[in-house]
């Protein structure tokens, strides 16, 4: 490659798109490093505290698309206090000051203020795409700024954010000249919007392919929107309630027949089961169906719908579909790759909606299954062993038994053997979440067999430090490890400190790690930030090294301690 001029090498690099590959390419030699960094347009930063915006800007002057992640994953489950961090403002401020022509920003678990959004909207004339997932800190005023100021906006995608709703003028802020929208998702907003504005917006957006509405958009508006946008590929329905004998409903049925490009269907934030039949005509082409937010649909309703969806590749559904319903999925959806079954009432253990039986049926019927998230009331070793025989392609396997220490109800044994079978037969497994009664044995199996594992989530499992050590020693590709309520302590934490430099992060909460061990680790490994989250009233200097730390989060970084940590986060 040294014989070719830089432009040729750069042209070759254009074909290398994955982040991992580009990162590898940049390590080959100084010349490639230089060519790569000038030609790089998309950068992914998995932990916003691992690097500073200044260094990002210095290295990649051609940056167009930035993805940033902030809080640790367990923040999704209320384990990370408010104000912990993950603020996007410094990033936007630094980028705005630079010459970077940012076009796309994708954030996950970050704190986004209205000021950030406003600055973003005014600083980058070519800005095209904003995707916010599980973020918080902004209101609809910030969204309005984006709508008003981003003249070439193509994508505004708000997924599961906590947004303070100042009631709906934001939609009217899209200027009449804005006709470039391709994707608009505001399903997570709670408040009213101006329906007429929405209709006009959709009418003047000929490229609109993805539209996800919020709960307040009624069925008759839906019908009007679909009339304007029969080219939609991805639809998220807001409210889906009407009298089936009404004229509006007939119109809806008619217009849905014309929407034969729809491949992905979600939402149903309010739904009347008797209206579902109108959807049937588009079911046969669906590849993604997400009914996990739909309240009040019974197992029968779900089953009848799923029976029409022969081409489904991804299904997100509530556990009220039941084991029998999953059997119908198994016999209908032969193309199924990803299944997520969510609990409809996480605190109610009385109504056992899905059990190991449903999972076994799915494993037997869906040969392409590679990704699973399954909330159930019980699981057996026999079932997991059967699943492991049937499915050897899992990339993601996340099993959540609602009682976190429940053993195999038939044999009263821990679920070590079952999970052991899963990791043994699924050699490509990258992500694993465990639950149920588990001893150190399961970790032995994971360390032995899960050689490609990148992310592991553990709760209420194990007997001793050995468990954690098996994983740290055996899983060579491990990047993220998150542990809660396990008896792992200092010995496991400190055995191989260099290991954490090969990982993105480690979370341990309610384990047996002491303050002293954390201090030792922080001292010996300057390339790691070791953070303690302390929500008790006690002050740092009054605590003994033997103090059991409640929450510890450590991550590798190139830039030392962060400057924005709140008082209750101790940076060791």
């Amino acid at each position: 490659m040294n014989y070719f001029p830089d432009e040729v090498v750069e042209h070759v690099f254009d074909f290398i798109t994955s982040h991992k590959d580009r990162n590898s390419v940049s390590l080959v030699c100084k010349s490639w490093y230089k060519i790569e960094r000038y030609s790089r347009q998309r950068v992914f930063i998995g932990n916003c505290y691992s690097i500073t915006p200044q260094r990002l800007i210095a290295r990649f002057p051609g940056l167009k698309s930035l993805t940033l992640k902030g809080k640790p994953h367990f923040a999704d489950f209320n384990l990370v206090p408010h104000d912990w961090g993950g603020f996007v403002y410094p990033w936007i401020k630094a980028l705005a000051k630079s010459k970077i022509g940012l076009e796309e920003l994708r954030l996950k678990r970050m704190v986004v203020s209205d000021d950030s959004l406003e600055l973003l909207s005014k600083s980058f004339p070519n800005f095209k795409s904003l995707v916010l997932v599980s973020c918080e800190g902004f209101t609809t005023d910030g969204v309005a700024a984006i709508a008003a100021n981003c003249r070439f906006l193509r994508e505004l995608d708000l997924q599961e954010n906590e947004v303070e709703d100042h009631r709906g003028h934001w939609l009217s802020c899209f200027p009449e000249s804005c006709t470039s929208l391709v994707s608009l998702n505001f399903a997570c907003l709670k408040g009213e919007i101006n329906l007429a504005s929405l209709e006009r917006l959709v009418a003047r957006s000929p490229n609109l392919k993805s539209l996800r509405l919020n709960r307040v958009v009624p069925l008759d508006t839906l019908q009007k929107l679909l009339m304007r946008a029969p080219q939609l590929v991805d639809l998220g329905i807001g409210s889906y309630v009407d009298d089936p004998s009404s004229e509006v409903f007939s119109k809806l049925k008619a217009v849905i027949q014309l929407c034969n490009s729809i491949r992905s269907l979600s939402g149903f934030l309010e739904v009347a089961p008797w209206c579902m039949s109108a959807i049937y005509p588009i079911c046969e082409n669906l590849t993604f169906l997400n009914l996990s937010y739909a309240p009040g649909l019974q197992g029968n309703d779900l089953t009848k719908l799923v029976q029409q969806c022969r081409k489904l590749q991804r299904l997100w559904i509530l556990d009220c579909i039941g084991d029998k319903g999953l059997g119908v999925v198994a016999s209908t959806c032969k193309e199924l790759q990803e299944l997520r079954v969510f609990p409809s009432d996480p605190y109610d253990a009385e109504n056992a909606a899905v059990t190991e039986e449903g999972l076994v049926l799915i494993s037997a019927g869906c040969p392409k299954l590679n990704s699973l998230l399954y909330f159930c009331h019980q699981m057996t070793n026999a079932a997991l062993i059967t699943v492991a025989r049937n499915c050897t392609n899992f990339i993601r396997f996340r099993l959540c038994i609602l009682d976190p220490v429940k053993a195999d109800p038939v044999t009263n044994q821990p679920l070590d053997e079952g999970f052991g079978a899963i990791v043994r037969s699924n050699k490509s497994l990258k992500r694993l979440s465990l639950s149920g009664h588990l001893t150190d044995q399961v970790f032995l199996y994971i360390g032995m067999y899960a050689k490609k594992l990148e992310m592991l989530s553990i709760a209420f499992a194990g007997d001793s430090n050995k468990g954690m050590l098996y994983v740290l020693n055996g899983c060579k590709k491990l990047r993220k490890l998150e542990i809660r309520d396990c008896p792992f302590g200092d010995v496991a934490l400190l055995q191989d400190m260099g290991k954490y430099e090969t990982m993105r992060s480690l979370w341990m909460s309610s384990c047996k790690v002491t303050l002293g061990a954390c201090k030792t680790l922080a001292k010996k490994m300057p390339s790691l930030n070791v953070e303690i989250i302390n929500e008790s009233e006690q002050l740092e200097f009054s605590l003994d090294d033997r103090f059991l730390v409640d929450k510890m989060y450590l991550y590798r970084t190139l830039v030392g301690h962060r400057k924005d940590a709140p008082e209750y986060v101790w940076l060791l």
Partner: protein
Amino acid sequence: MSSENGKRLLETDAGGLNFEATELTLGLPGEPRVTSDGGAKLGSKRGISETVDLKLGDNNPEVKLGHSLQEAAKSPVSKTQVVGWPPVRGFAKRGKKSCKYVKVAVDGAPYLRKVDLEMYNSYQQLLTSLEDMFSCFTIRNYLNEKKIDQVNGIEYMPTYEDKDGDWMLVGDVPWQMFVESCKRLRLMKSSEAVGLGLKTAPKYSSTN
């Protein structure tokens, strides 16, 4: 049961369930398969473990386990006390009717109001909204500052009735858990709250 493509379904009784035969024997030589100590395996926060007492290697496991599970079932409350479990993102109110209107009573007001708890993301938002609604009163806020109403010098404690019928102080549990269990709200005059022994205000996690 068998399916067309020969994949295995659960092997039901063909001469009794023989799990030993199906169990993987992957342990290192000499390693015990199960620990004898069933007690010390859980971490320091033992919300669930207090109620479930598993003893491994017992000959008669079903009796003990059944008993423990019965004990656990008797105290379902302890299951809901474990923060962050199940690991379902709290924001996603899956499967629930998405309106949660509850009555709000204020001591001394002639009529009640209703609020939809689903419209708020945090305690702070709810209390601010209640203050707006009952604009002549002020509610003792979460920072424990004494906000005495200018007009008539009365302070109010926000309380709610939960699913069990008990009257609770607003703010102790994570927001989503509160929305789940709240049946109605009452703003109680602080003078009546004497004797509840409340020295510190609860720490509201305002975005939970």
